[in-house]
């Protein structure tokens, strides 16, 4: 029973207490760069989550074989391999998303969340805990990106996941789909997130 409870906490910490975006501020480049719509945010989140789960899985499997001194380069190669796979899958099956995300797909390699979890968690824990940790962290990342994308899309283009709910010629806050809107929206979302979490704990 205690075991299950532990895993539940392990899973939930990534979503709220150690949320990679709002609390730990990791992986900010894709967070700000691709979230001009909810769909892009979700796509980027899922791609990153896939790499995160696979790299945590492999790292925790081979952790005893890798000498401590070369572990960081080894982790980077593992991560880069999965990023290349994601890049190829996206290009083949979702070319629209591939074009939208552009440079940020190869840059998943240098997303600090992934290397951070490999180093801080997967290299010290067993396979099952590592996968659960990756799913929790990945979901926290997906949620943050989708919410930020949704807020920016609603304010900036008056739509959500591409469905427009204002008339074609209505004026929207275009600022929010432009670069400055990313910083400003994330600033206020962080305030909101801190407010909500400080109340519940």
């Amino acid at each position: 029973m205690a075991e299950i409870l532990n895993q539940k906490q392990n899973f939930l910490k990534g979503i709220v207490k150690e949320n990679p975006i709002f609390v730990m501020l990791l992986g900010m480049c894709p967070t700000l760069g691709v979230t001009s719509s909810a769909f892009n945010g979700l796509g980027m989140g899922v791609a990153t989550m896939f790499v995160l789960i696979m790299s945590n899985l492999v790292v925790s499997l081979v952790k005893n074989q890798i000498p401590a001194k070369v572990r960081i380069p080894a982790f980077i190669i593992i991560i880069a391999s999965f990023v290349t796979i994601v890049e190829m899958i996206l290009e083949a099956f979702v070319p629209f998303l591939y074009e939208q995300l552009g440079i940020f797909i190869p840059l998943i390699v240098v997303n600090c969340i992934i290397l951070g979890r490999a180093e801080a968690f997967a290299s010290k824990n067993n396979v099952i805990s590592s996968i659960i940790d990756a799913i929790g962290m990945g979901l926290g990342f997906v949620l943050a990106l989708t919410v930020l994308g949704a807020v920016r899309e609603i304010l900036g283009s008056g739509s959500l996941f591409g469905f427009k709910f204002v008339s074609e010629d209505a004026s929207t806050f275009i600022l929010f789909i432009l670069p400055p809107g990313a910083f400003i929206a994330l600033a206020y979302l962080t305030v909101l997130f801190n407010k909500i979490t400080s109340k519940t704990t």
Partner: protein
Amino acid sequence: MDYIIILIAAVFVNNIVLSQFLGICPFLGVSNKVSTSVGMSGAVLFVMTIATLATYLLYEFILVPAGLDYLRTITFILVIAALVQMVEIILKKVSPPLYQALGVFLPLITTNCTVLGVAILALGLENGSLLKAVFFAVANSLGFALALIVFASIREHLELANVPKGMKGVPINLLVAGLLSLAFLGFTGLV
């Protein structure tokens, strides 16, 4: 003429930090003092130039002829990581004062996405050549330096300002970055 356009575009119009969102981590992380941000900018200028030179040659003369261009991401990140290590060792021997100034920032640069990002973007330049790719890297690191140093100067003043409780720390910095980005938006259409 081409080169002037690349320079203006990289520094002002498509600023790598404020409009392309690369290198946000060091932008938020090492910008609390002007002196550290100058050191970081110097290290980025140094590494980015060498890294782009190395990855461009690698891509054009090894990966493309061998039909291995899908290995771009893996090879580039390895080359950059190895290069950063090498630069660190060489600097320590050859120029201790420069090592003193840049030393702390060098390891951080491996996970700085500007370096990998610019190396990849440099491959897609129009009528690309080695010289143009390297110039592109220099221009972008100047853009990075400008954004970082301006942001650090604002943050030094912000220390003394009376910020509402909920906005302290990260949110106010993000807002400042947002306003800075808004200012740079004014350069749109310049080239």
